[in-house]
Protein backbone atom coordinates (compact mmCIF):
# COMPACT_ATOMS: atom_id res chain seq x y z
CA UNK A 1 0.00 0.00 0.00
CA UNK A 2 2.55 2.53 1.11
CA UNK A 3 4.39 2.24 -2.19
CA UNK A 4 1.47 4.01 -3.87
CA UNK A 5 1.77 7.04 -1.61
CA UNK A 6 3.07 10.04 -3.46
CA UNK A 7 4.22 12.01 -0.46
CA UNK A 8 6.99 10.09 1.30
CA UNK A 9 6.06 9.60 4.94
CA UNK A 10 8.63 9.97 7.69
CA UNK A 11 10.21 7.12 9.70
CA UNK A 12 10.40 3.46 8.66
CA UNK A 13 8.41 4.06 5.50
CA UNK A 14 11.02 6.40 4.03
CA UNK A 15 12.35 3.61 1.81
CA UNK A 16 8.92 3.04 0.31
CA UNK A 17 8.70 6.80 -0.11
CA UNK A 18 11.80 6.95 -2.28
CA UNK A 19 10.37 4.35 -4.60
CA UNK A 20 7.25 6.48 -4.87
CA UNK A 21 9.40 9.51 -5.66
CA UNK A 22 10.81 7.54 -8.56
CA UNK A 23 7.39 7.81 -10.21
CA UNK A 24 7.63 11.55 -10.21
CA UNK A 25 8.44 13.68 -13.16
CA UNK A 26 9.47 17.29 -13.49
CA UNK A 27 6.64 19.27 -14.99
CA UNK A 28 6.26 22.96 -15.69
CA UNK A 29 2.95 24.69 -15.14
CA UNK A 30 2.61 27.98 -17.00
CA UNK A 31 -0.12 29.79 -15.11
CA UNK A 32 -1.90 33.00 -16.10
CA UNK A 33 -1.58 35.28 -13.06
CA UNK A 34 -3.53 38.43 -12.44
CA UNK A 35 -3.82 40.42 -9.24
CA UNK A 36 -5.53 43.81 -9.55
CA UNK A 37 -4.02 44.84 -6.22
CA UNK A 38 -0.55 44.54 -7.73
CA UNK A 39 -0.87 45.32 -11.41
CA UNK A 40 -3.48 45.81 -14.10
CA UNK A 41 -1.69 43.35 -16.36
CA UNK A 42 -2.01 39.59 -16.46
CA UNK A 43 1.26 37.68 -16.82
CA UNK A 44 2.37 34.10 -17.38
CA UNK A 45 4.30 32.58 -14.52
CA UNK A 46 6.13 29.25 -14.71
CA UNK A 47 6.19 26.82 -11.80
CA UNK A 48 8.38 23.76 -12.15
CA UNK A 49 7.51 21.02 -9.68
CA UNK A 50 8.11 17.33 -9.06
CA UNK A 51 4.86 15.44 -9.35
CA UNK A 52 3.47 12.00 -10.13
CA UNK A 53 2.05 12.23 -13.68
CA UNK A 54 -0.92 10.14 -12.56
CA UNK A 55 -1.98 13.05 -10.37
CA UNK A 56 -4.38 15.66 -11.67
CA UNK A 57 -3.82 19.30 -12.57
CA UNK A 58 -5.73 20.22 -9.42
CA UNK A 59 -3.13 18.35 -7.32
CA UNK A 60 -0.40 20.31 -9.06
CA UNK A 61 -2.20 23.58 -8.31
CA UNK A 62 -2.53 22.50 -4.67
CA UNK A 63 1.13 21.61 -4.50
CA UNK A 64 2.07 25.01 -5.94
CA UNK A 65 -0.27 26.89 -3.62
CA UNK A 66 0.70 24.97 -0.51
CA UNK A 67 4.44 24.57 -1.05
CA UNK A 68 5.57 27.26 -3.48
CA UNK A 69 3.37 30.33 -3.75
CA UNK A 70 0.45 30.79 -1.39
CA UNK A 71 -0.92 33.71 -3.38
CA UNK A 72 -2.01 31.47 -6.28
CA UNK A 73 -5.79 31.73 -6.35
CA UNK A 74 -8.30 29.32 -7.86
CA UNK A 75 -11.68 27.80 -7.06
CA UNK A 76 -12.26 24.20 -6.14
CA UNK A 77 -14.56 22.46 -3.77
CA UNK A 78 -15.33 18.77 -4.25
CA UNK A 79 -12.13 17.89 -6.12
CA UNK A 80 -14.06 15.02 -7.72
CA UNK A 81 -15.74 16.46 -10.76
CA UNK A 82 -19.17 17.14 -9.31
CA UNK A 83 -19.33 20.67 -7.92
CA UNK A 84 -18.28 22.42 -11.12
CA UNK A 85 -16.08 25.05 -9.50
CA UNK A 86 -12.71 24.38 -11.15
CA UNK A 87 -13.34 24.73 -14.87
CA UNK A 88 -10.26 26.33 -16.42
CA UNK A 89 -8.49 26.51 -19.75
CA UNK A 90 -5.75 23.88 -19.63
CA UNK A 91 -3.46 23.66 -22.66
CA UNK A 92 -5.98 25.78 -24.53
CA UNK A 93 -9.01 23.60 -23.79
CA UNK A 94 -11.69 24.03 -21.17
CA UNK A 95 -11.56 21.24 -18.61
CA UNK A 96 -12.05 20.56 -14.93
CA UNK A 97 -8.65 20.66 -13.20
CA UNK A 98 -9.83 17.85 -10.92
CA UNK A 99 -10.60 15.52 -13.84
CA UNK A 100 -7.51 16.16 -15.95
CA UNK A 101 -4.56 13.84 -15.41
CA UNK A 102 -1.14 15.35 -15.92
CA UNK A 103 0.03 12.36 -17.98
CA UNK A 104 -2.69 13.09 -20.55
CA UNK A 105 -1.32 16.58 -21.23
CA UNK A 106 2.14 15.78 -22.68
CA UNK A 107 3.86 17.09 -19.51
CA UNK A 108 7.29 17.19 -21.19
CA UNK A 109 6.15 20.60 -22.46
CA UNK A 110 4.92 23.42 -20.21
CA UNK A 111 1.24 22.93 -19.31
CA UNK A 112 -0.68 26.18 -19.62
CA UNK A 113 -3.43 26.99 -17.14
CA UNK A 114 -5.67 30.03 -17.69
CA UNK A 115 -9.03 31.27 -16.47
CA UNK A 116 -12.02 30.43 -18.69
CA UNK A 117 -12.62 33.00 -21.41
CA UNK A 118 -15.41 35.51 -21.90
CA UNK A 119 -15.84 36.49 -18.27
CA UNK A 120 -14.18 39.11 -16.10
CA UNK A 121 -11.05 37.81 -14.39
CA UNK A 122 -11.12 38.75 -10.70
CA UNK A 123 -7.84 37.18 -9.63
CA UNK A 124 -5.59 34.53 -11.19
CA UNK A 125 -7.93 31.70 -12.25
CA UNK A 126 -11.08 33.13 -10.69
CA UNK A 127 -13.65 34.78 -12.95
CA UNK A 128 -16.88 36.61 -12.18
CA UNK A 129 -19.54 33.97 -12.83
CA UNK A 130 -22.46 36.35 -12.28
CA UNK A 131 -23.38 36.88 -15.98
CA UNK A 132 -23.28 33.10 -16.44
CA UNK A 133 -25.65 32.49 -13.53
CA UNK A 134 -27.85 35.37 -14.68
CA UNK A 135 -28.40 33.56 -17.99
CA UNK A 136 -29.11 30.38 -16.02
CA UNK A 137 -31.72 32.13 -13.85
CA UNK A 138 -33.27 33.73 -16.93
CA UNK A 139 -34.42 30.36 -18.31
CA UNK A 140 -36.30 29.60 -15.06
CA UNK A 141 -34.51 26.37 -14.10
CA UNK A 142 -37.18 25.08 -11.72
CA UNK A 143 -40.33 22.99 -12.00
CA UNK A 144 -43.35 25.00 -13.15
CA UNK A 145 -46.79 23.42 -12.71
CA UNK A 146 -50.43 24.43 -12.56
CA UNK A 147 -53.28 23.10 -10.43
CA UNK A 148 -53.12 21.55 -7.01
CA UNK A 149 -50.10 19.83 -5.56
CA UNK A 150 -50.49 16.09 -5.91
CA UNK A 151 -50.71 14.23 -2.59
CA UNK A 152 -48.07 11.78 -3.73
CA UNK A 153 -44.99 12.15 -5.94
CA UNK A 154 -45.29 13.34 -9.55
CA UNK A 155 -44.97 10.11 -11.47
CA UNK A 156 -43.20 9.70 -14.76
CA UNK A 157 -42.55 6.74 -17.04
CA UNK A 158 -39.01 5.51 -17.55
CA UNK A 159 -39.21 6.59 -21.19
CA UNK A 160 -40.32 10.11 -20.22
CA UNK A 161 -37.44 10.32 -17.75
CA UNK A 162 -35.02 9.12 -20.40
CA UNK A 163 -36.08 11.96 -22.74
CA UNK A 164 -34.09 14.59 -20.82
CA UNK A 165 -31.64 12.36 -18.95
CA UNK A 166 -28.56 13.73 -20.67
CA UNK A 167 -29.21 17.34 -19.64
CA UNK A 168 -29.81 16.45 -15.96
CA UNK A 169 -26.08 15.77 -15.65
CA UNK A 170 -25.01 19.42 -15.87
CA UNK A 171 -22.91 20.70 -12.96
CA UNK A 172 -22.91 24.37 -14.10
CA UNK A 173 -19.15 24.51 -14.48
CA UNK A 174 -19.39 26.98 -17.43
CA UNK A 175 -16.85 25.04 -19.48
CA UNK A 176 -19.28 24.98 -22.41
CA UNK A 177 -20.47 28.60 -22.32
CA UNK A 178 -16.93 29.92 -21.94
CA UNK A 179 -15.76 27.84 -24.93
CA UNK A 180 -18.41 29.29 -27.24
CA UNK A 181 -17.13 31.89 -29.76
CA UNK A 182 -20.56 33.51 -29.98
CA UNK A 183 -20.50 34.04 -26.21
CA UNK A 184 -16.94 35.43 -26.34
CA UNK A 185 -18.10 38.10 -28.75
CA UNK A 186 -21.48 38.79 -27.28
CA UNK A 187 -22.11 38.09 -23.61
CA UNK A 188 -25.81 38.72 -24.15
CA UNK A 189 -26.15 35.24 -25.72
CA UNK A 190 -27.72 32.82 -23.24
CA UNK A 191 -24.93 30.34 -23.90
CA UNK A 192 -25.00 26.55 -24.02
CA UNK A 193 -25.28 25.93 -20.26
CA UNK A 194 -28.48 27.97 -19.89
CA UNK A 195 -29.98 26.19 -22.91
CA UNK A 196 -28.99 22.78 -21.50
CA UNK A 197 -30.75 23.61 -18.25
CA UNK A 198 -33.82 24.91 -20.09
CA UNK A 199 -33.81 21.66 -22.11
CA UNK A 200 -33.85 19.71 -18.84
CA UNK A 201 -37.28 21.20 -18.03
CA UNK A 202 -38.72 21.75 -21.52
CA UNK A 203 -38.57 18.00 -22.19
CA UNK A 204 -39.69 16.94 -18.70
CA UNK A 205 -43.23 15.54 -18.96
CA UNK A 206 -44.04 16.81 -15.42
CA UNK A 207 -43.19 20.41 -16.22
CA UNK A 208 -45.69 22.90 -17.66
CA UNK A 209 -43.44 25.91 -18.22
CA UNK A 210 -41.95 24.63 -21.46
CA UNK A 211 -43.78 27.13 -23.65
CA UNK A 212 -42.51 30.07 -21.56
CA UNK A 213 -38.91 28.83 -21.72
CA UNK A 214 -39.17 28.26 -25.46
CA UNK A 215 -40.44 31.81 -25.86
CA UNK A 216 -37.43 33.12 -23.90
CA UNK A 217 -34.98 31.12 -26.00
CA UNK A 218 -36.74 32.16 -29.23
CA UNK A 219 -35.64 35.75 -28.69
CA UNK A 220 -32.68 37.39 -30.36
CA UNK A 221 -30.05 36.18 -27.89
CA UNK A 222 -31.48 32.69 -27.61
CA UNK A 223 -30.89 29.43 -29.48
CA UNK A 224 -30.80 31.02 -32.94
CA UNK A 225 -27.41 32.54 -32.16
CA UNK A 226 -25.93 29.03 -31.92
CA UNK A 227 -23.74 28.30 -34.98
CA UNK A 228 -23.15 24.62 -34.21
CA UNK A 229 -19.39 24.89 -33.72
CA UNK A 230 -19.56 21.98 -31.24
CA UNK A 231 -17.04 23.66 -28.89
CA UNK A 232 -19.53 23.17 -26.05
CA UNK A 233 -19.92 19.44 -26.66
CA UNK A 234 -16.13 19.05 -26.77
CA UNK A 235 -15.70 21.03 -23.56
CA UNK A 236 -18.36 19.42 -21.37
CA UNK A 237 -16.65 17.41 -18.61
CA UNK A 238 -19.90 15.51 -18.05
CA UNK A 239 -20.03 14.29 -21.63
CA UNK A 240 -23.38 15.97 -22.25
CA UNK A 241 -24.25 16.26 -25.94
CA UNK A 242 -24.68 20.00 -25.57
CA UNK A 243 -25.00 20.92 -29.25
CA UNK A 244 -27.60 18.18 -29.71
CA UNK A 245 -29.63 19.58 -26.81
CA UNK A 246 -29.53 23.04 -28.39
CA UNK A 247 -30.65 21.61 -31.72
CA UNK A 248 -33.53 19.82 -30.00
CA UNK A 249 -34.71 23.13 -28.56
CA UNK A 250 -34.51 24.70 -32.04
CA UNK A 251 -36.50 21.81 -33.45
CA UNK A 252 -39.15 22.12 -30.74
CA UNK A 253 -39.46 25.83 -31.53
CA UNK A 254 -39.80 25.23 -35.26
CA UNK A 255 -42.39 22.48 -34.92
CA UNK A 256 -44.45 24.53 -32.45
CA UNK A 257 -44.25 27.86 -34.28
CA UNK A 258 -45.04 26.73 -37.82
Amino acid at each position, binding site marked *: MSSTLTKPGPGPEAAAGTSAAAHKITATFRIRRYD*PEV*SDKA*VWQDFTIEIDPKERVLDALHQIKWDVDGTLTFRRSCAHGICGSDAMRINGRNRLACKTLIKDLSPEKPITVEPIKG*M*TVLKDLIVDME*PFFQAYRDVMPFLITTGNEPTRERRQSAADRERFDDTTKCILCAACTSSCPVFW*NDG*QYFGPAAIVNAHRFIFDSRDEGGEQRLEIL*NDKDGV*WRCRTTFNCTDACPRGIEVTKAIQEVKKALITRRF
Partner: protein
Amino acid sequence: MSTLITDDTQGFGPDNPAPRIDPPRARTRRSPRATRTNYEMYAWVFMRLSGILLVVLVLGHLLIQLVLDGGVSKVSFAFVAGRWASPFWQVWDLLMLWLAMLHGTTGLRTIINDYAQRDGTRFWLKMLLYTAAAFTIVLGTLVIFTFDPNIR
Protein backbone atom coordinates in the same frame (compact mmCIF):
# COMPACT_ATOMS: atom_id res chain seq x y z
CA MET B 1 12.10 29.08 -9.38
CA SER B 2 9.77 31.73 -10.67
CA THR B 3 9.40 35.43 -10.72
CA LEU B 4 6.17 37.34 -11.00
CA ILE B 5 6.71 40.36 -13.20
CA THR B 6 4.83 43.15 -11.58
CA ASP B 7 4.45 46.75 -12.46
CA ASP B 8 4.30 48.80 -9.29
CA THR B 9 4.66 52.14 -10.99
CA GLN B 10 0.91 52.73 -11.12
CA GLY B 11 0.62 52.30 -7.37
CA PHE B 12 -2.09 49.63 -7.30
CA GLY B 13 -2.80 48.24 -3.85
CA PRO B 14 -5.51 46.68 -1.70
CA ASP B 15 -7.23 50.06 -1.38
CA ASN B 16 -6.59 50.98 -4.99
CA PRO B 17 -7.10 47.90 -7.19
CA ALA B 18 -6.81 48.01 -10.96
CA PRO B 19 -10.15 48.65 -12.67
CA ARG B 20 -12.21 45.66 -13.79
CA ILE B 21 -12.00 44.78 -17.47
CA ASP B 22 -15.45 43.44 -18.30
CA PRO B 23 -16.02 41.63 -21.59
CA PRO B 24 -18.00 43.61 -24.17
CA ARG B 25 -21.76 43.37 -23.72
CA ALA B 26 -21.81 41.25 -20.56
CA ARG B 27 -25.22 40.02 -19.49
CA THR B 28 -26.88 41.87 -16.63
CA ARG B 29 -30.11 41.45 -14.72
CA ARG B 30 -31.87 43.80 -17.14
CA SER B 31 -30.41 42.62 -20.44
CA PRO B 32 -31.13 41.40 -23.02
CA ARG B 33 -34.51 43.02 -23.49
CA ALA B 34 -37.24 40.70 -24.76
CA THR B 35 -38.54 41.47 -28.24
CA ARG B 36 -41.00 38.57 -28.53
CA THR B 37 -40.86 38.13 -32.28
CA ASN B 38 -40.12 35.08 -34.42
CA TYR B 39 -37.70 37.10 -36.55
CA GLU B 40 -34.54 35.19 -35.56
CA MET B 41 -36.24 31.87 -36.17
CA TYR B 42 -37.42 32.88 -39.65
CA ALA B 43 -33.91 34.13 -40.47
CA TRP B 44 -32.43 30.83 -39.31
CA VAL B 45 -34.88 28.74 -41.34
CA PHE B 46 -34.40 30.97 -44.37
CA MET B 47 -30.62 30.39 -44.26
CA ARG B 48 -31.14 26.62 -44.48
CA LEU B 49 -33.87 26.68 -47.16
CA SER B 50 -32.13 29.24 -49.36
CA GLY B 51 -28.89 27.29 -48.88
CA ILE B 52 -30.49 24.13 -50.25
CA LEU B 53 -31.86 25.98 -53.29
CA LEU B 54 -28.56 27.78 -53.81
CA VAL B 55 -26.70 24.48 -54.04
CA VAL B 56 -28.75 23.61 -57.14
CA LEU B 57 -28.89 27.13 -58.60
CA VAL B 58 -25.24 28.09 -58.03
CA LEU B 59 -23.68 24.75 -58.95
CA GLY B 60 -25.91 24.56 -62.05
CA HIS B 61 -24.93 28.11 -62.94
CA LEU B 62 -21.22 27.40 -62.52
CA LEU B 63 -21.52 24.19 -64.52
CA ILE B 64 -23.22 25.93 -67.44
CA GLN B 65 -21.01 29.01 -67.41
CA LEU B 66 -17.62 27.46 -66.73
CA VAL B 67 -17.61 23.78 -67.69
CA LEU B 68 -20.04 22.71 -70.41
CA ASP B 69 -19.70 23.66 -74.07
CA GLY B 70 -16.12 24.88 -74.16
CA GLY B 71 -15.97 26.40 -70.68
CA VAL B 72 -15.71 30.06 -69.81
CA SER B 73 -14.40 31.13 -73.24
CA LYS B 74 -17.83 30.66 -74.79
CA VAL B 75 -19.43 33.25 -72.50
CA SER B 76 -20.11 36.35 -74.54
CA PHE B 77 -22.82 38.93 -75.09
CA ALA B 78 -24.50 36.62 -77.56
CA PHE B 79 -24.41 33.68 -75.12
CA VAL B 80 -26.04 35.73 -72.34
CA ALA B 81 -28.57 37.20 -74.78
CA GLY B 82 -29.43 33.71 -75.99
CA ARG B 83 -30.09 32.42 -72.48
CA TRP B 84 -32.10 35.41 -71.33
CA ALA B 85 -34.38 34.98 -74.33
CA SER B 86 -35.89 32.05 -72.42
CA PRO B 87 -38.15 32.76 -69.43
CA PHE B 88 -36.73 29.64 -67.75
CA TRP B 89 -33.22 31.12 -67.47
CA GLN B 90 -34.64 34.51 -66.57
CA VAL B 91 -36.41 32.94 -63.61
CA TRP B 92 -33.33 30.89 -62.73
CA ASP B 93 -31.09 33.94 -62.64
CA LEU B 94 -33.70 36.02 -60.86
CA LEU B 95 -34.12 33.38 -58.14
CA MET B 96 -30.37 33.02 -57.81
CA LEU B 97 -29.94 36.77 -57.53
CA TRP B 98 -32.61 37.21 -54.90
CA LEU B 99 -31.70 34.16 -52.85
CA ALA B 100 -27.94 34.76 -52.91
CA MET B 101 -28.39 38.42 -52.00
CA LEU B 102 -30.85 37.78 -49.21
CA HIS B 103 -28.84 34.81 -47.96
CA GLY B 104 -25.57 36.72 -48.04
CA THR B 105 -27.18 39.76 -46.41
CA THR B 106 -28.74 37.70 -43.63
CA GLY B 107 -25.38 36.00 -43.10
CA LEU B 108 -23.51 39.30 -42.89
CA ARG B 109 -26.18 40.62 -40.53
CA THR B 110 -25.30 37.72 -38.20
CA ILE B 111 -21.63 38.58 -38.43
CA ILE B 112 -22.29 42.28 -37.71
CA ASN B 113 -24.43 41.30 -34.71
CA ASP B 114 -21.52 39.18 -33.51
CA TYR B 115 -18.72 41.64 -33.83
CA ALA B 116 -20.06 45.19 -33.60
CA GLN B 117 -19.69 46.22 -29.98
CA ARG B 118 -21.48 49.55 -29.89
CA ASP B 119 -25.16 49.90 -30.74
CA GLY B 120 -24.45 52.79 -33.10
CA THR B 121 -21.79 50.89 -35.04
CA ARG B 122 -24.09 47.90 -35.34
CA PHE B 123 -26.98 50.02 -36.58
CA TRP B 124 -25.00 51.90 -39.23
CA LEU B 125 -23.16 48.81 -40.51
CA LYS B 126 -26.51 47.11 -41.02
CA MET B 127 -27.96 50.17 -42.75
CA LEU B 128 -24.98 50.18 -45.12
CA LEU B 129 -25.46 46.45 -45.72
CA TYR B 130 -29.20 46.72 -46.41
CA THR B 131 -28.74 49.69 -48.72
CA ALA B 132 -26.09 47.87 -50.74
CA ALA B 133 -28.24 44.73 -50.91
CA ALA B 134 -31.37 46.62 -51.98
CA PHE B 135 -29.40 48.49 -54.63
CA THR B 136 -27.91 45.28 -56.07
CA ILE B 137 -31.23 43.42 -56.03
CA VAL B 138 -33.12 46.26 -57.74
CA LEU B 139 -30.43 46.81 -60.35
CA GLY B 140 -30.06 43.08 -61.08
CA THR B 141 -33.81 42.54 -61.37
CA LEU B 142 -34.09 45.52 -63.67
CA VAL B 143 -31.37 44.16 -65.96
CA ILE B 144 -32.87 40.67 -66.13
CA PHE B 145 -36.30 42.01 -67.18
CA THR B 146 -35.35 44.96 -69.34
CA PHE B 147 -32.46 43.31 -71.15
CA ASP B 148 -32.59 44.11 -74.84
CA PRO B 149 -30.24 42.16 -77.12
CA ASN B 150 -30.67 44.67 -79.98
CA ILE B 151 -28.46 47.41 -78.67
CA ARG B 152 -26.57 49.53 -81.08
